[in-house]
């Protein structure tokens, strides 16, 4: 009688087990944000879509979700821009090149780049929102011929808090992107725009509303103002994308922490079409 036998010797994997990965470089971006270049043990690409995230682990400390801020077209490694915000991120900030972290992922639903192929793209990023969209920016620049016009607006609180300064300088010079930045609070050296990111809309040419895909990533207040500008330019809601942030633990649709109304942000998101989110009352602050 099989019922009576101790049959199962099952030793499966765990959904929650991280893979070791090596930090190959650490670059200080601002007082609180570092850029980590990471290589999976054994090499090989992470295999992500722009906009997806990983769970970064320090065993013994914990885990936290971080957007992948490099493009999948850059195969040999991937990058994470990590703000010091609490327990795990504080410990990550103590690490150097050569140290090991654990990686789970890629997780979640990112940008489906084929939906953007052949279209004009407008990206509006505020604050740390530049991190998740940087993977898409790099992707567009690497695969430039697949896209139409490319506009990129980026707002930071102050020049010192502007992330990816090296990229910013390059993007300013790059003819492949119509790039504008602004800061809320300028310092002495700042020569650029001042004001919230919506003020940069005056820099945009007339957009073709049916050929333009708009991507808005930043804090909820910023999102609310920018979405008005975008919809005001008659871009349909289904062509507007955003990325949500929620408390996360499992990252695979089990633990319930990331739930916004009936949506699991770690599974169905973090990237959503605005058209899908409208009905979610909790989605945007």
């Amino acid at each position, binding site marked *: *009688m*099989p*019922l*009576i*036998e*101790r049959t*199962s*010797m*099952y*030793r*499966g*994997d*765990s*959904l*929650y*087990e*991280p893979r*070791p990965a090596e930090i190959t470089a650490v670059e200080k971006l601002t007082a609180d944000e570092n850029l980590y270049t990471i290589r999976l*043990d054994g090499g090989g690409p992470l295999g992500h879509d722009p906009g997806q995230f990983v769970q970064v682990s320090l*065993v*013994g*400390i*914990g*885990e936290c979700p971080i957007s992948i801020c490099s493009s999948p077209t850059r195969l040999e490694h991937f990058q994470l821009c990590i703000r010091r*915000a*609490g327990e795990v*991120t504080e410990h990550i900030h103590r690490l150097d090149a*050569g*140290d*090991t972290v*654990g990686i789970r992922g890629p997780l979640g639903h990112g940008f489906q780049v084929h939906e953007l192929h052949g279209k004009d793209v407008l990206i509006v990023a505020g604050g740390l929102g530049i991190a998740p969209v940087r993977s898409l920016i790099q992707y567009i620049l690497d695969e430039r011929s697949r896209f139409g016009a490319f506009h990129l607006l980026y707002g930071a609180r102050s020049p010192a808090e502007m992330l990816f300064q090296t990229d910013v300088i390059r993007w300013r010079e790059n003819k492949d992107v119509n790039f504008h930045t602004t800061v809320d609070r300028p310092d002495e050296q700042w020569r650029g725009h001042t004001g919230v990111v919506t003020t940069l809309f005056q820099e945009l040419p007339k957009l073709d509303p049916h050929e333009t895909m708009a991507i808005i990533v930043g804090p909820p207040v910023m999102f609310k103002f920018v979405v008005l500008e975008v919809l005001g330019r008659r871009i349909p809601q289904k062509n507007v994308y955003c990325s949500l*942030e*929620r*408390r996360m*633990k*499992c990252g*695979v*649709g*089990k*633990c*319930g*922490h990331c*739930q*916004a*109304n*009936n949506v699991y942000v770690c*599974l169905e998101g973090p990237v959503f079409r605005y058209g899908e989110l409208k009905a979610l*009352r*909790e989605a945007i602050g």
Partner: protein
Amino acid sequence: MLDRVLSRKRLLELVDELAHARRIVGPVKQNDHYFYEPVDRADRLDLDFSYCVYGPKAFLLPPTQTLFRFKQHAGTFETTPEHNDEPLGIIGVHPCDVNAIRLLDHAFANTHPDEHYLTRRRQTFIVGIDCPGPCTEGVFCGDMHGNEATTGFDVMCYPLSRDDTGGDVRYGVVFGTDAGREFILYAQAGDPPSVEDERAFERYQIEKQAAFPQQIPYGVDTLPDLLERSYDSLLWQATARRCYSCGSCNLSCPTCYCFNMFDEQELALGTGERKREWDGCQLRSFAEVAGGHNFREAPASRLRHRIYRKAKWVKEREGIAGCVGCARCDRACTAKISSVEIYNQLAEER
């Protein structure tokens, strides 16, 4: 249609057989209340139990559970996943709890199968005991259809009649799985059902229908729609003013499966474990992120979240109801917040 009829005495003998190979868990009385407890002999089980204070969830999804062990060395680390495959028999599971387990099965199997749960579940044998009537006051399992289980058990026993002298119960048995069939038939226990047995079973079911009072007069199928229209009701705030955000409702719920993850380490050895533990959406910090922003700061928004999950969202996502109507949350709440009362109040506002 019945598959077999069996006396309780014989059932308990089979459970004793089963105990050679499986840890046996079932209802045991402690200070006037019943709890699912491991037992070494079947006669310690009280299959006449009214209801167990908590469902048997803890044996499938333990309150804390190791997910993997880790060992740090030479600047890197190794992990070893932990899966518990100890064979288990849960004896005496009422239909509400069978249905609750069905939901857990589904939630842990979909999209990203969770082997920590599924390994235990595959090793679990479930003997259901049907309820001829409500186990206690205030339950609304009849409304939620939690009082009927058609799958999710290995065998289900329907108490058809009771022998007046010895107190033995005659069960009509339905097999839910091949393992359930073997459990009974391998031992050639009981008898094939006679025509009278089938008639008794029909009568049992008719009487059962009548025995469960309707607690949600507007009907449970109206709830998703009702909730959809009640998002901005003042009732959430009015009710949540009494809420202590203690999470007892989550803790006592057989379908709540949200969890937190955390690490424990032996610093000196460089070893440790990543674990999960039950969490509850009614606790204040459940949706709080670094920097202090809380996506459900107000108790009212947390209460609404729980009720929406139970009566709308879980069903929409998983296809299986998130509430079985056992009313354990209502009984657990010191503030006397009652989900069934909320449903009815919302319906009356309309």
